[in-house]
């Protein structure tokens, strides 16, 4: 098993944990973290898996991941802005439907 593939499996693990966390958590910040984990896992799979298929560095997926990271950061930043604004307005860090009966 090449190291590429190992990291691809690692990516799989990250994805799984990310999905688990994303579903489990209602706190928005944690969801965001889970999303980032998912993203990282995906990137790992993308690069690791395609490189394990060829057995050498493949620049295309790497370039894609670079783009992906930037996009993810942009999304994260945007989400944070929204979350903060939401928290400021409502004093909550969860969405209304997840706040339980109140």
């Amino acid at each position, binding site marked *: 098993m090449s190291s590429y593939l190992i990291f691809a499996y690692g990516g799989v693990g990250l994805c799984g944990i990310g*999905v688990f966390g*994303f*579903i489990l958590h*209602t706190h928005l910040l944690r*969801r965001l973290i889970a999303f980032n984990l998912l993203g990282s896992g995906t990137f790992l799979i993308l690069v690791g898996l395609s490189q394990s298929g060829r057995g050498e560095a493949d620049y295309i997926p790497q370039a894609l991941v670079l783009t992906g990271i930037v996009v993810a950061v942009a999304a994260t930043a945007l989400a944070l802005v929204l979350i903060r604004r939401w928290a400021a307005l409502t004093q909550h860090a969860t*969405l209304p*439907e*997840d706040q339980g009966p109140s």
Partner: protein
Amino acid sequence: MTFFQFWLLFTPCLPLILLLAFLHPAGRAMIPFLAMLAPLPALLLSFMPSQSIELSSLFLGSLWGTDVTHNVFLRFTALLWIFSACFGLGYLKRDQHANRFWLLWLMTLTGNLGLLISQDIVSFYTFFALMTFSAYGLVIHTRQDNALFAGRIYLVMAVVGEMLILAGLFLTSAASAHSTLIFAELKTHLPQAENLWLPLTCLLLGFGVKAGLPFLHMWLPLAHPVAPTPASAVLSGAMIKAGLFAWLSILPFGLVALPTMGLIMIFVGLLAAFVAGGIGFLQTLPKAVLAYSSISQMGLMTCALGAALILPEMWHFLLPTLLVFAFHHAIAKGALFLSVGLKDHYRGVSFFIIVLGVLVPALSLIGVFGSGIQAKLALKGVLEQDSLPSWLLPSITLSAMATTLLMFRFLSLMWKNKSPTPSALPLSMNLGWAGLVIICGLGPSVLIPELDLPSGLSQWSAYPSLLLVPGLTLIAVYFLGAYPRFQIPAGDIIYPLIKLKEVCTTQLDRLTPHKAVGVEEQATKPSFSLPTLITLNQAEKTIQSYLSAFFGLLTLVLIVSLYALR
């Protein structure tokens, strides 16, 4: 278009044209006179030669025309209408609602004249309906309770009759494979119909309502007493004959032999002739007595028609006889009705004249005077056939007993109920009445020359036989008592029928679940159903909360369905 054809067209249209007079006050004042003149063209027409006109645009293609039968009917109808109108001129002088009476009068007249010249189903039916429904207005002219009741019965029965007629016409048309609507052609096709009895029954019963067949006769004794006297006269004299006319026009008499049906008709006719006499004797109103008399007389004609069904060959002889009989009865009955309107007005000598005058149609009806003799003799002569049941002729002879009883009852009622304070009578009423009495006295041989009837005097040898039965009856009455102890209300079986209907209605009402009648819809606003909304929102919220979970689960499901289940 020849002149005659134009005249033909003009005859039924004239009363309608006269209706225009209502538009102007001056014209409105003229209306009674105009009404009197309206049937004149018909009278003239009846003396013109037979002719016909085809009106292809009218209805489903109409044929109007006259032949001997039409002419006879037209003649007595026109005479009756003329003199009745003349009578009415005075009768309604002080009536506030005279205008609407004359309006309906003219419409009824249109119907009556029109149907007498129609030679096809649709125009006949149209005029018949026009006559029927307009006459309703005449019946309830006084708007009193008894008039309204009689009117309702009349209307119900008329509508039932119309419907039976319609059914019969449908079936008749079917027999000709819907190829024609002309009576003359239909008549020839009708015998080929599969179930001949069905159309025949429908038509017999349908027109029987008008003609006062027993069990369909109830409207007659109810309507005649309540209607204004001139209206009663035409109702009983002319309009009843419309039923007869329809039978003659449509039913294939002389073309087919239907012994059973003929026998039934004879029975029914005799039933009418006798029982109506009995019931009529028990009436208290002179007009009701006359109405029953009409039923009884029509029963005789029904008998004759039944005989024609048994023995088609005799139709040639029977038809003129029937025409004479119809003529005689119409005029006599008209005169009698008008005389009811006179009785209150005279005293002394003039009263005596009146009584004499009244006796003319009364005796004539019994068959011992004037036109009655000719009619009765002719009928008997025709029915003297071997192949007919042997009891028929004696029965007919015996029926004079019923008539005698009725006339006796009528005259005695007239006598008894005469007003203690008579008033002067307008000339027009006298004229109208006198005219009819005179015509009645003249007899048919004068007025219907085309039938070549033997003159009344030539048959003098038969007179005693005519006198026998009435005479015996009078003697019996003398001994048994002239005044009945009990009465049957006019309309006889209508009362049990009404009772029956009420019972049925109440029973039905009890059976059906009683719904509140006429409940208006409550004012319903389109409103939100809040509980539903809350529940739904809760569900939606739950879905929202598990939004991301659906992502995971559905992904798994989709992958499985993509890969494993393919």
